[in-house]
């Protein structure tokens, strides 16, 4: 099955049908998506500002990252699930939307980065000041997540 047929199957599923026909189904799922976004954004910001040595300087970056990482992961799961439901409303259109494609690419990048270099940067920084590569990792992480959000907002506008 091609990727496009997966998108069409989603659009024609019972979930897609519910989202397309009920205004409030879509609204409620969108609100959940936004709430999880706010939680994820705040946690990522606090983690990265610690990594950059801006806030919570005396605390271990690794501990802050591990603890708030649970909030990031929890919110991410809610966002992906609610995101699939939102996608089902107009999957056929999203498949061709450049904003949607950008969002998925940036999201994949953000998650991959989060589990690899970002993780190492937190571990290596721990209680100290970040090395310059760790600072770059912090800024890059913020830019990736911000990019996901901006591309997401653009889906509805373009």
């Amino acid at each position, binding site marked *: 099955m091609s990727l496009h047929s997966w998108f069409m199957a989603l659009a024609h599923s019972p979930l897609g049908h519910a989202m397309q026909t009920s205004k409030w189904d879509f609204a409620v799922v969108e609100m959940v998506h936004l709430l999880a976004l706010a939680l994820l954004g705040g946690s990522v*910001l606090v983690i990265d500002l610690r990594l950059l040595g801006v806030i*919570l300087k*005396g605390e271990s970056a690794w501990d802050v990252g591990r603890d708030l990482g*649970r909030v990031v992961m929890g919110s991410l799961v809610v966002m992906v699930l609610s995101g699939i439901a939102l996608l089902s409303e107009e999957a056929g259109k999203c498949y061709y939307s450049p904003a949607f494609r950008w969002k998925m690419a940036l999201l994949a990048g953000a998650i991959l980065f989060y589990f690899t270099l970002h993780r190492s940067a937190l571990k290596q920084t721990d209680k100290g000041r970040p090395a310059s590569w760790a600072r770059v990792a912090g800024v890059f992480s913020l830019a990736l997540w911000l990019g996901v959000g*901006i591309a997401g907002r653009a889906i509805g506008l373009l």
Partner: protein
Amino acid sequence: MPVLQHLCQLLYDSPIGTAIRESNIAFPVIESVHVLSITLVFGTIAVLDLRLLGLVLRQIPVSRIARNVLPLTWTGFGVSLVTGFLLFWAEAAKVYWNPAFRTKLVLLALVGLNPLVFHTTIYRRVEEWGYLAVFPWRARAAAVASLMLWSGVIVAGRAIAYFT
């Protein structure tokens, strides 16, 4: 016409209100900044609230987290207030009647009252309870109230668009 409604109509008809409303990019750009700043407010206050509930960052004293995180919250709040007012300016005469907008304003007033009460009462004695494993119920209640009210603000804010 009630005075508030009259005021909304004046804002709506003013050159700035009209310019934001009629521009293709001004409204979505201001709106995006508004959403981002709300993320900053809710996300950072949620970290503090989750700490008060003992769910995250238990090894860091709550007063340290408050000192480090609240400036971010206030920054976000300032930006969301300015951008929110600009959005209101453009749509004032319409949102005057919007039930979601009215709900949002009430929730904002309540969500402002919550830290006012928290900081002038239980938080004043944070030195006495900040080291405990479980915080006094009034501190936890303030955290739950904050999480629920801010969620309500976001939900009501998003609902504004569904009532026009």
